[in-house]
């Protein structure tokens, strides 16, 4: 038998949805028993919400829910949606900068989750990686097809947010190693890798955005990625 953990998850979106979070999740199949309970904290307290999300041992919870989705369990699908959609939507919105396209990307990702949950292979990566990849690839496809020229959501300037991003990353158990290794990269390489990931920019778009020749952008990123891999494997 494993230990019992008590995780407080505040309402993730509309108040009505908190009822789903209030349910007690008893994963008897996994080693630990997680009790998921909502606090009375109102939505719209992003810092607290984020902190609570970070404390959640998501890989276990997401994988357990995913395997129940493969068996056609709609309640598990709803729980997985409530837990993961804010993360997927944030990633998709950042890339597309258009709420409608971001919503499409998240919708399409979850449709795939429901239809192909049985294809998830825990040996190849975590459930979190799979879900975020689905939404991210979809957002990239949508934005490449529709173009990014429509003015969308304003995003903060790069220089202001990078320390915040690294700090957020390092607070996450699964992101800590990556955060440390990014922190060790030279500033130019780190900026390129993070901007490429968060904003989903191509080589050509990065070259324009940073006013740096295309060849330089490509080789800096490759070197940054190689350094990153070495650091992560060390």
């Amino acid at each position, binding site marked *: 038998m494993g230990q019992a953990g008590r995780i407080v998850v505040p309402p993730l*979106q509309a108040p009505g949805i908190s009822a789903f979070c209030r349910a007690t999740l008893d994963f008897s199949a996994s080693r630990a028993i997680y009790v998921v309970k909502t606090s009375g904290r109102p939505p719209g307290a992003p810092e607290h919400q984020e902190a609570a999300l970070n404390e959640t041992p998501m890989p276990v919870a997401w994988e357990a829910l995913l395997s129940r989705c493969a068996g056609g369990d709609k309640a598990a699908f709803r729980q997985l949606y409530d837990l993961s959609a804010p993360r997927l*939507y944030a990633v998709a919105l950042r890339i597309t900068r258009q709420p409608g396209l971001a919503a499409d990307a998240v919708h399409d990702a979850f449709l795939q989750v429901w239809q192909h949950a049985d294809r998830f292979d825990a040996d190849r990566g975590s459930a979190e990686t799979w879900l975020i990849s689905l939404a991210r690839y979809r957002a990239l496809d949508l934005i490449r097809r529709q173009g990014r020229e429509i003015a969308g959501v304003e995003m903060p300037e790069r220089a202001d947010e990078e320390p915040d991003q690294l700090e957020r990353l390092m607070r996450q158990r699964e992101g800590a190693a990556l955060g440390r290794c990014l922190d060790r990269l030279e500033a130019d390489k780190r900026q390129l890798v993070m901007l490429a990931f968060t904003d989903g920019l191509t080589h050509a778009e990065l070259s324009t955005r940073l006013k740096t020749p295309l060849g330089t952008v490509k080789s800096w990123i490759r070197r940054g990625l190689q350094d990153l891999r070495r650091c992560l494997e060390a």
Partner: protein
Amino acid sequence: MSAEPDDLDMRAAEYVLGLLSPAETDAVRRELGRNPALTQAIAEWEARLMPLAAAVPSETPPGLIWQRLEAELGVRDSAQASIAPLRPRPMLRRVGFWQGTTAAAAALAACLALLWLRTPAVHYAAVIAPTQGPAAAWLAETRPDGALVVTVLGQTARPAGKDLELWALAAGATRPVSLGVLPASGGLVVAANLPRDRLQLMVSLEPAGGSPSGQPTGPVLYAGTLTRTE
């Protein structure tokens, strides 16, 4: 390490980051099925890089995403679907049935009669039809819990990069209220507390993602009025 596997590894990383052009991305995807080393490298880079998603603060997703999923999965899975009892029967879903119906009035009458016969719990319904043309496009019905369920009946073409948005205009009101963007397939469940009687439903052509202003900006292509069916 020789240059070749290194190049494959870097291509995998660039694909995962999204750095490649659409043509290069397609090339990687075509190669995926027949190159296990590339598939493996991509999986490894996904595992390495996806934690970066945590660098972006979570955002509350619009409720419409779940409404669409619920409507679509409900249509697919009749055993547990909340709107299953209300979905059109196979005869109604055959395009030919609706193409054969030449007048919107006939469609409305047939539809309301069917509704009345088979779903006594439904109180209000509307056939949303093109403002110019006969074929029915959507069926809107109220559920016992008050939600409005909109189900696709016929074919609804929309230009690329545009969306169709559903609006409700209460009797006596001057400004319509958005009920959301209609999905290309499946239905939409609107948990709205609306005055039902004589509620006008309209579908306008809007930019992708819906009207940016909260009011219709494009032409109204489809319309219908909720009518009491019992």
